[in-house]
């Protein structure tokens, strides 16, 4: 089933193919303009390499690039999965009762306002360098939005709904399973898009500081060796990885909580 807005977009696709082509046109256009600008203005490759030399570097180092991308992918996903498990658990705990919510919310905000890059040295101190600090940074940075969203979904149940059920003798657990948890799912799945992006930032950040593998590490090495086109190739690899992960989460959100989109819930 699709709603009116979706249908409108689909209709626009059908009647106007440019709507569908626009993202591709813009992306390809960007690279073309970049290529031409670099050539015409004669920008030295160590300042800004042309896309063609970036592509060549990517081809040349394809093996290493793939290996390091996979490394970054798995540390990101590992941290992200940890964040889902702990984020859900803590979110449910915090949202269970308004008093817990009130008590822990400021702490959470305080924790979240610490720039996570400042945590990396501490993590290195505790667990050494390598993949572990990358996973932990990804986890630390991405679990907060999950907690907050799940807790908010639970804590903002309409009081009337609670009254209707409580007057019937419903226990807290009934209210949570029948109302609170289904209601917090759109918040949860919505937060995954943000969380995966943050997890990615976390793992790359940690890789550039304290790792010997991963795209972040590769970038740093390339920069030290003055392989500027490779630095850019890494950057583009990161962008592609980021977009793919975001798209997967956006798709999942849509799949799991279609009712929220269709009903205009929480808008």
């Amino acid at each position, binding site marked *: 089933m699709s709603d009116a807005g979706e249908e409108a977009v689909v209709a626009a696709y059908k009647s106007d193919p440019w709507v569908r082509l626009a993202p591709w046109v813009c992306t390809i256009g960007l690279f073309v303009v970049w290529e031409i600008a670099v050539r015409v203005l004669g920008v030295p490759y160590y300042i800004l390499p042309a896309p063609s030399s970036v592509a060549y570097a990517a081809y040349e180092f394809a093996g290493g690039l793939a290996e390091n991308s996979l490394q970054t992918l798995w540390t990101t996903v590992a941290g992200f999965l940890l964040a889902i498990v702990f984020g859900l658990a803590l979110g449910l705990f915090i949202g269970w009762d308004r008093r817990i919510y009130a008590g822990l919310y400021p702490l959470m905000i305080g924790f979240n306002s610490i720039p996570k890059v400042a945590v990396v040295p501490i993590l290195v101190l505790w667990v050494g360098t390598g993949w572990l600090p990358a996973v932990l940074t990804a986890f630390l940075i991405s679990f907060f939005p999950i907690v907050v969203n799940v807790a908010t979904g639970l804590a903002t149940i309409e009081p009337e709904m609670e009254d209707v059920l409580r007057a019937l003798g419903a226990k807290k657990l009934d209210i949570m399973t*029948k109302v609170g948890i289904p209601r917090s799912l759109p918040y949860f799945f919505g937060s995954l898009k943000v969380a995966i992006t943050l997890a990615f930032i976390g793992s790359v950040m940690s890789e550039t500081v304290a790792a010997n593998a991963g795209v972040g590490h590769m970038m740093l090495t390339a920069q030290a060796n003055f392989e500027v086109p490779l630095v850019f190739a890494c950057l583009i690899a990161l962008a592609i990885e980021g977009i793919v992960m975001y798209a997967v989460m956006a798709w999942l959100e849509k799949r799991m909580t279609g009712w929220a989109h269709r009903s205009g819930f929480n808008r």
Partner: protein
Amino acid sequence: MSFVEIADVALRYAPQGGAEGTLAVDGLSLSVEKGEFVAVVGPSGCGKSTLMKLATGLNFPTRGSVSVAGRPVKGPVSIAGMAFQNPVMLPWRLTRDNVLLPLEVVQPHRRQMRARKAEYQAKADALLASVGLEGAGEKYPWQLSGGMQQRASLCRALIHEPELVMLDEPFGALDAFTREELWCVMRDLHAQKNFTTILVTHDLREAVFLADRIFVLSARPGRVIKVRDVDLPRPRPLEVTYEKQFTDIVHELRGLIAEARQ
């Protein structure tokens, strides 16, 4: 003993911050007979919603006693159905499943939910049809208009055949025509099932049209300052609202509330 007995009740809400908690009602006494339809009117903020929560066991009096169906209220009464100004439907459930929600909570239905699912669903559909919502059970609540959602919310309040129905300004957010339509729906449901009803409303015509007796509350802290019997014969057609006898009662109530607001 009456079906609902509220005797000399006071309720003070818990203090927030430094300020003293609000004394919402004080010296509130009223009784409602079984099967009776009463309305509660009064100035805004006088404790009408508080009265609802007292009678359903969602809140407990600071002083005085509340009893329902002959038993002192020590917790949620479980025999009440409630509807509010805001229909609060769950958007991920079909309208029918929203209506069925109380059956998933109260015994013995809760136990039998799985075994008697088809029967319960048929019952929900029949109830929806009786308020003019044939076929709406298959739709999501957000596909219904405000008035239709409010009808569905009435069905949810009635599905478990409660002995006590509590309505807190249920028609407050509707346009005049829909509202009058729903008055008639409510009138017919009450005539048919004869549950005891307490209706809180700001609309005096609504109170006079639907109720057997009307309690007028004072400004906060609320207490009953007048009990007005409505001796219009039943069944009441909508036209009764234009008769002198009807409008006289409305005017009388209006005067009382204007006075209470001072």
